[in-house]
């Protein structure tokens, strides 16, 4: 079976093979194929710029792989700023001996994701390191986006306003649940699929429909718990959530029951939250529900001035509790 060797990162003829036969074939566009030291870009107006590195284990999980994650993660960071994702850089650090076929699958997954929003990989780097120097594969993607959100209405974690509706774009916790279920030591089987998804088309639709997004964020590490607490703190508002309205897939819930976890703490890679004025909530929902990955979009709560910095969960029988930041290592509750 063909494997990536140290020579593939050496800058010589084998490197060229890797770049031409794989990366250029998958990502090819007029800028990338110029093969210069740097990409020359022309962008109008304000620019958003972000970076992220991906080290997920396992590399291949139900619903995606590290490549899909590397594109979606960075594209989504730009989208959450109201920026159209235009260009990505892509750096690979590959452990020698990595299976060529697996690298191909990963790279072509990335290409498929890029197509969903017309984003181009315009520069990149490849390093091949000796066995043990990295755990199989690390990918870094940095992204540049053109801000299309109107300047007077820029989504921001500090932008939540009293009486805003809090909307979640879909059921939560699927990515975190998939990764957890994949832990070999737990011996679980399920049909769980990560929610990993490129979100730009939905965000673009919101702006086109005239929805004023006071705040926008994808609920990645730390899940909904971390996101809502960040917002309550940044905007110095109170966020009140109706627990029963939070959509959670049965299998995610099953996993939580089995191990004693809370889906609110699980990472998402294709689910986001927005804060909009109450009168725009319906319009936002209608706009989002056109997309299959947002068909479960729903209002889960509201912003109030009860106590700044606090996130409250309301039960359907009238009791409340505070939703805390997720803390510490996720260990199964056993006995």
């Amino acid at each position: 079976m063909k494997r990536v060797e140290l020579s593939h990162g050496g800058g010589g003829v084998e490197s060229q093979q890797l770049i031409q036969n794989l990366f250029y074939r998958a990502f090819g566009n007029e800028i990338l194929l110029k093969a210069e030291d740097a990409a020359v870009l022309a962008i109008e107006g304000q620019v958003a710029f972000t970076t992220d590195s991906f080290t997920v284990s396992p590399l291949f999980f139900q619903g995606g792989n590290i490549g899909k994650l590397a594109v979606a993660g960075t594209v989504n960071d730009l989208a959450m700023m109201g920026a159209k994702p235009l260009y990505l850089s892509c750096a690979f650090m590959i452990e020698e001996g990595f299976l060529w076929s697996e690298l191909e699958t990963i790279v072509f997954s990335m290409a498929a994701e890029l197509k969903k929003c017309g984003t181009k990989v315009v520069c990149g780097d490849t390093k091949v390191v000796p066995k043990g120097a990295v755990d199989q594969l690390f990918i870094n993607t940095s992204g540049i986006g053109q801000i299309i959100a109107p300047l007077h209405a820029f989504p921001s974690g500090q932008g939540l306003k009293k009486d805003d509706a809090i909307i979640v774009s879909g059921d939560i916790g699927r990515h975190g649940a998939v990764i957890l279920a994949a832990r070999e030591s737990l011996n679980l089987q399920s049909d769980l699929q990560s929610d990993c998804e490129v979100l730009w088309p939905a965000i673009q639709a919101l702006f086109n429909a005239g929805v004023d997004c006071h705040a926008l964020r994808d609920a990645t590490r730390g899940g909904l718990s971390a996101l809502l607490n960040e917002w309550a703190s940044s905007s110095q508002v109170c966020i009140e959530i109706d627990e029963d309205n939070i959509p959670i897939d049965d299998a995610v819930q099953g996993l939580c029951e089995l191990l004693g976890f809370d889906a609110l703490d699980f990472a998402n890679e294709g689910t986001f939250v927005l804060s909009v004025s109450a009168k725009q909530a319906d319009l936002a929902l209608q706009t989002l529900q056109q997309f299959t990955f947002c068909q479960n979009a729903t209002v889960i709560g509201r912003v109030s001035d009860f106590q700044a910095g606090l996130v409250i969960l309301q039960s359907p029988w009238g009791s409340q509790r505070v939703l805390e930041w997720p803390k510490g290592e996720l260990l199964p509750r056993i006995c």
Partner: protein
Amino acid sequence: MCLSIPSKITQIDELNIATVDTMGVSRQVSLDLMAEPVSEGDYVLIHVGFAMTKMNESDALASLQLYQQMIELMDSESLASQDLSGVLVK
């Protein structure tokens, strides 16, 4: 108390192991502690990889039906006469 949850047996495998489903997540569990025989479709309580007991389905259903009645009677006077007692020991 230890975390133990109801799951449905979907398959009885060899060597006294069963596959159980918890709302879409499956796992193999040992039946070594089960005092009574079980079959596919039974509900069992599982804890750290073992099935501990079979859930008493008719009892569970009876409880749920009782609660339903209780809700319907909530504003009426017959509520007081409804018997919600548990099983008395001795």
